[in-house]
């Protein structure tokens, strides 16, 4: 009898304990509400937890999503700002805040946050977003600062390096331009000519003619090949470069060009067939100077907005 009673009591106790254990906790409650689409109730439950200081990441993010689902932008912004402040060292949290500002079209706040994010964790993606904004808005000083940072961090893209170089050259910062354009020269497609012509010019202007001529001689082979594909009537960058070289130092330029030609022919025909002497043979070298002298196009295709088309 006693054993029966003990069994029943213990079973009852176990059942009670199990029942208590099976009552959904706070967390389980709101997840069930969200799952069932009972968003108003879920919002109340999550806001209560949030006010009580229970700010688990997933709960906060769900609270944010719920506010957005009711188009309560101010509340959602408050939650996301506090979330980013609580996780100030976490780039993911700052990125979420930036995305939120983008979603609510608060452009100044979005840009400010992206700048913070870039400071916290420099990345090409963040830089790209910032650069697009700076360029569209015409805030060129901020664009230049960011480009300099990208250059210093060695994560600059060829187009950006070229642009930075040209910006600095336009401002008269020839040494800065040299650095950026040299980087451009290192990483850009060998056929790209504008940045390299600018680099040549910048090197000449700062008195480093030897470097300019040697660099030019190293480009000329690629540009000759590229010129084979140009349409009739278009000006040829290689010809233009040769003119620029000859204007700087005719003797050295001729020598370097001959060497380049010889190397090229050797590579084409093998060592045995390499010519002993070099005869400078540059197409249209003696062509008439066009009406505006050297200030001519290299014939790179442009779209209707004046941008160089991608190849």
């Amino acid at each position: 009898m006693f054993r029966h009673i003990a069994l029943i009591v213990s079973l009852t106790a176990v059942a009670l304990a199990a029942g208590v254990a099976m009552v959904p906790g706070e967390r389980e409650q709101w997840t069930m509400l969200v799952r069932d689409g009972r968003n108003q109730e879920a919002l109340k439950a999550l806001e209560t937890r949030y006010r009580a200081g229970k700010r688990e990441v997933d709960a906060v993010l769900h609270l944010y999503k719920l506010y957005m689902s009711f188009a309560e932008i101010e509340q959602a912004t408050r939650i996301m700002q506090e979330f980013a402040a609580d996780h100030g060292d976490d780039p993911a949290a700052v990125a979420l805040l930036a995305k939120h500002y983008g979603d609510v079209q608060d452009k100044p706040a979005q840009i400010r946050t992206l700048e913070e994010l870039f400071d916290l964790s420099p990345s090409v993606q963040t830089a790209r977003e910032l650069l697009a904004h700076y360029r569209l808005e015409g805030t060129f000083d901020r664009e230049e600062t960011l480009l300099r940072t990208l250059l210093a961090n060695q994560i600059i893209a060829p187009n950006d390096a070229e642009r930075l170089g040209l910006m600095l050259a336009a401002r008269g910062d020839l040494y800065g331009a040299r650095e950026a354009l040299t980087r451009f020269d290192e990483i850009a497609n060998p056929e790209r000519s504008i940045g390299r012509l600018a680099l040549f010019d910048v090197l000449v202007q700062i008195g480093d003619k030897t470097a300019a001529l040697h660099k030019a001689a190293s480009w000329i082979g690629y540009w000759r090949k590229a010129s084979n594909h140009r349409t009739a009537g278009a000006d040829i960058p290689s010809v233009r470069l040769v003119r620029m070289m000859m204007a700087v130092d005719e003797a050295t330029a001729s020598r370097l060009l001959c060497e380049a030609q010889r190397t090229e022919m050797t590579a084409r025909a093998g060592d045995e067939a390499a010519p002993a002497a070099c005869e400078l043979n540059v197409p249209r070298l003696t062509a008439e100077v066009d009406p505006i002298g050297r200030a001519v196009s290299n014939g790179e295709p442009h779209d209707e907005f004046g941008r160089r088309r991608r190849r």
Partner: protein
Amino acid sequence: MRAHGRVAGKYRRAIVPVRRCRSNFEHLFIFWIEPVLSALIHISWLRLLALLPAATRCDVPLRMVLTRSALLLVCVLSLAPGAMAQSPADTPPAEPVRREILAVYDSREEPRPDQTRIHRFAEMPLNHLGLVVTYWDVNAGFPGAERMANVRGVLTWFRRTPPPLFYLWGREQVRQGIRTVILGDGGLPSGNTAFADANRLFAEIGFGLSGGLVDLTYGTRILHRDALIGFERPLDPVLPAFPIVGTFGADVSSHLVLEHREGDLVLASSVVITSSRGGYAANGYFVYEEPGTGRTKWIIDPFAFFQKAFGVETMPIPDVTTLSGRRIWFSHIDGDGWNNVSRVEAYREKPTIAATVILRELIAPYPDLPVAIGVIGADIDEKYGTPEAGRQTARDLYLLPQVEVATHSYTHPYQWSFFENYDRALEERLTGPDETEWKAVLGERMRRLAKRLFPGLTRKGEAESKIVEDDPPRAYSDFPFDLDQEIRGAITAAEEVAPEGKHGTLYLWSGGAEPFEGAIARTRRLGLRNLNGGDSRFDADYPSISYLSPISRPAGAERQIYAGNANDYIYITDGNGRDHGFLHLEATVNATETPRRLKPINVYYHMFAGERAAQLAGVRHHLDSARQALVTPIGASHYAAIADGFFATQMMALGDSSWLIQNRGALQTVRFDDAAGLTIDFTRSTGVLGQRKKGGSLYVALDEAQDDVVVALAPDNGDSADISAPHLIEGRWTFRDMRRQDCGFTVMAKGYGTGQMTWGGLRPGAYHVAVRTTSETVWEDIAEVGDDGRLALTADADAVNPLEIEVACSDENGRP
């Protein structure tokens, strides 16, 4: 032209004394007599006066009489031509105002007019200046003199070299006085002869190209720039490549001049110019495109540039943004998602379709805001297995007085062009199942799994591209496409669920909203207005007027009227999806009001907004805002009619700052820009209801009851009380048939919500205001007019049906 002449003759007698044209013979006399022989005439006149008494005396000898008579005859004869040549007034002859700009495009690059850069960028600013853009394919020969008779200017934006004859034709047009604007230089020919031809055309306009291009621009400096430059974006520190452009003629204004040095060589280039013969802007110097995002901004001020280049001086500009002195507000709903079950929590207990939610949340509570509802025919057609709830909701919606009956097609074509040359077999291939059921299910599960495991595979912007890629040609393709059913059938389906006598008025284009000419023509033949497309926006994500569409889209000889603003779908599919996105319409509404009113307010959404709380909240926000704003709410079909009126309007300059305006249809506002010192001269104007200034513009309200009106301007001395005629300043309703009386006026009114209105030009004192239907007075009040001559009142009456308003001087007891 002939029509202009006839009407001008009518108004010469009736309204304004317009001087008839002199014959060439008279001009000859004016030339010789007035400047050279005026002294002789004067002498003759004096001699005549002296001779007359002498010649009529009786006591003079016959010989002397004959002599004096002969002398008298000479004097009289010498006076006669001079008398003929005297003009009654120095008013110039009436002249039609040319509003047409012929956009010459190249179909090899841009197949259709609505796909051209001119349509995308330039047409909106040109419309804002009151100009109508028509298109001509440069590959289709060149328009003759008859076609060009009413053309004000020619505009090109070529990328490819046009046929050589274009330059010869263009040159002839400039010589004929047609201003020509060249945007970009991408289409310049490379051959010497053709280049010389191009330069001959350019020389007529006032510039010439050397053929050289500066692409290393870091040595270039800006020699001169004016206020035209840097409109939305400053010049880039890395200047785009530019051609060497010289200018010819004293009338040429260079707005941006660049100086480039190459050693000792100094080159100056005018990359943006205007002249009295047209204008030019070099590539890269008028529109900027951000390379990473493709976002665009204007570098030059397109309004000022086109105004100068096309010589747009003070003239009435047909305006589609304003009515009764206030900004136009209208709303319409595309029926997409009509029968979708709402997920809004308040409707969870009993599944409710989205259309019902919209009815209960956004339509019924706002009787003061009209809305056109375009149901999709198939959505309420039992044949397609749709629920009865959808049909019942349609009946309930159309029963409401503020709801206009419209249609959003029958089977909801997504790609209208597909149906221009319809091929049923092809459609079946496109829409037929290409997977067995189990394969489809398995495939979908695998796709979901892949997305969960590799979320990076989900590209940004997938939502937008997916819809285009996966869309079938239309939503309901069970039966073969039939254009008659798509147009007539659709409006009939809507009318069938509308109360008797309430007719369909509007066709709302579906899908990509790019209907072909035949489809638009079909709506016109049924007397329907048409609307949709354009997707205008101007906000933080699209921060430029280059994202504002023009008034219409050309399709052959037809015009599709664009919606005023982008719809909710555009906003909610921004980024990775933003249910609340429609709230951002507010940014566009604000940006298109100040500094220029460029667009009306158009709250344009879909029935699926009833599915989600955030989307519902977005629309509700705009409806609540409309109640607070000083707007004139009108039906969407009314807006479409106003837009049609923009293109139909003809104007004649009558001289002395007055214009005759005809064929304007439903368009009832003209605008004068830069009008700070101008006001309406009500004594010389006819059919003018009122005026209101906003910024530097003067908005003139015209009387719908008069087909032809004359608008005359006078200098504004700044004292509004000086305007003697009672006139409308602004109002929420629309007004017509105004009759000014000795003291007060009567006018008919119609509109939505309470009748807020302000009148001016009244004499100070007490006025009795009565608002009447045909049978009774529904509202009346006594109002006091002060020294400013203004009467502001709010008539609390229902004006969905026309009311008469009488404003009359009253005695101390309030009796008229």
